[in-house]
């Protein structure tokens, strides 16, 4: 299933395969590409390989086979160059508990090579992600999961990288915040970012993503564009694919 995209691909998985030391095949020849101005949503159960994919893009682990490319740069060849073009929001953002939101932002922005921001810029971004003004100067220690998540997203925005990796970004957010977050993603897409997100949230994925991939046991079992899925019940498709894959799996065994 080749994806026809009008602009160049910023995030590419090319036969991406990862087998851990213990022999477990976490990712099995996965291929996809995310172009600038596109959102790619990975769906799948726990242990399907979503986080492994993101880890490979971040070069936290090395691929067993194939490669992950960021703007044409192979991540495990030149990780530092690749990471310059990446922003990342982890699942369950923790950050430094003894730093204030602003301090955390400042540290990570500068770590990402952005030394030109003023305090006001930080405040603006925090407001943009929906963190109340009064919380900006407070230490992260007392923050709720959702507030921390917002800081993590702010950090990713501040880096202003062409590609963004999101690992379960809405997991800690309340429905209103999650809704706002989707709006945010949309505007980021509008700025021409390539966004790869893993999520459990089928409905939001359907709302926002240009392309949806379903993963199961390390394989990309389905990949369809939004238009392609237009008339279908994604939940049903998801369950079908998961079940069907299981069946096939049991058959081959």
């Amino acid at each position, binding site marked *: 299933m080749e994806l026809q995209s009008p602009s160049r691909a910023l995030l590419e998985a090319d036969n991406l395969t990862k087998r851990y030391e213990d022999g477990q095949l976490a990712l099995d020849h996965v291929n996809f590409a995310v172009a600038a101005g596109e959102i790619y949503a990975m769906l799948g159960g726990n242990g399907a390989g979503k986080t492994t994919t993101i880890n490979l893009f971040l070069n936290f682990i090395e691929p067993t086979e194939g490669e992950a490319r960021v703007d044409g740069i192979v991540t495990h060849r030149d990780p530092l160059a*690749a*990471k310059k073009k990446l922003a*990342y929001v*982890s699942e369950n*953002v923790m950050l*430094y508990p*003894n730093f204030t939101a602003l301090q955390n932002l400042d540290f*990570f922005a500068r*770590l990402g090579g952005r030394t030109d921001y003023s305090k006001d810029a930080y405040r603006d971004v925090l407001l943009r992600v929906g963190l109340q003004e009064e919380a900006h100067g407070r230490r992260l220690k007392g923050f709720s999961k959702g507030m921390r998540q917002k800081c993590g997203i702010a950090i990713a925005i501040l880096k202003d990288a062409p590609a963004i990796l999101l690992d379960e970004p809405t997991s800690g957010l309340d429905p209103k915040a999650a809704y706002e977050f989707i709006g945010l993603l949309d505007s980021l897409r509008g700025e021409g970012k390539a966004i790869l997100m893993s999520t459990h949230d089928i409905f939001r994925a359907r709302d926002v993503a240009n392309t949806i991939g379903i993963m199961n046991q390390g394989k990309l079992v389905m990949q369809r564009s939004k238009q392609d899925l237009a008339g279908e019940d994604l939940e049903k498709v998801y369950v079908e694919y998961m079940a069907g894959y299981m069946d096939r799996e049991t058959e081959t065994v």
Partner: protein
Amino acid sequence: MFRLIVEKELRETLGTTKFAVTFAVCAVLILLAFYVGARNYQVGRAEYEAARAENLKQMEGLTDWGRVDHRIFMPPQPLAALVSGVANDIGRTTEVETRGELRSENSRFNEDPMFAVFRFLDLEFLFGVVLSLFAILFAYDAINGEKERGTLRLSFANSIPRDRYILGKLVGAFLALAIPLLIPILIGCVLLPILGVPMDNGAWLRLGLVVLAGYLYLGVFLALSVFISAMTERSATSFLMLLVVWIVAVLIVPRASVLVAGRAVDVPSIDRINFDKSKFETQLWQEDRDKMMDWQEENSREGESGREFFERFQQYTQELGEERNQRISEYTARLNEERRNRESVQQRVALGIARISPTAVFTLATTNLAGTSLSLKHQYQAESATYQKIYSDFIKEKTGRTNSGMVIRLGGEEEEELDPIDPYELPDFSFAGPQTADVTAAALPDLGLLVLFNVVFFAGAFVSFLKYDVR
């Protein structure tokens, strides 16, 4: 980038309650160590002066230099206030005789066993035991803690070289501990001269090196903590490991290695040597006694007056005595030399093994620098022995005899009026103490070893972090 990480590390450490509490505890303790150390020095100095003056005063009114009871004392070492070493364990008072072996007695702990029960809280103890524990407390989760918080992932989503990161962490952690500690240390240093501890340039240099050794030692524990934290996944694991390492390195290895290795080398006991010496002396004396008897038989001339006979006899005993003393001192010197050789072998073995613990290395370096190492005893003995010669020459000049033979007084009852002696004519003994150049040279290998520990642990941390799974 490097600066950014250092800066973050500093801010992260300095802003915590953990830091505030430990810093407050350390600051109070360091100031206490300086203050009480300086006070102890003052008291010790006053006692020393009093003892010296008292000794001279007691001689006033004596008329015979042969009857003076002269004592010399070891003055307190200025830096012993901060690094007590063995200064409290060795004898401080020496009764000077014109001949024979000198023996120093009255060690502080022997006189006041109360202080021996818990010992002192000095700068060396603070660094060696307390600060090393705090260093672990600050760095045990340097790497795996960041991982647990997810910040390691987030940081490495940026293009950061790992070597830069780990170096930044270590430097940041070190500065966060070292700079605040400088404040109480500097205040303490100012206190020293104010409280009357005489500090010359050499002493300042040595104190500076002691502090440097302290910082190197802190560095060892920080690097080790970072190392272990880069080898383990969970901070609870690394803390437990570090605590065990700390217990073993700080509390167990120095003591156990010296006790076990020290006993492996056989050193003849002092009692045995003393016995051999006195046996030899008795034997010689017996021989000489027989010779004297024979001499009397052979040399009693008819018609000689008692006085003439005595004079000749005294001359003879004098000669015999000198020869005997010569032999005794040669024999003693040989025994002592042998014992000292054995002792130095024992020392080399025991301390060599103890040096696997950075704490032992640190203790050896600082006691050397402060002049309270094992060599203090030998140095004091050597200087007393030199003084003994001067003293003996002095007494000989004053009395015309060496106290070596027998003192035979004639004319028991006819007391002539003698002029009292002036005890202040006595040659002055002042223990020079360890020289800056010597002690620095002696401490250098240990300082080097501390640097080596730093390098090794840092390299370990570096290598394991390069392979660290940041996920």
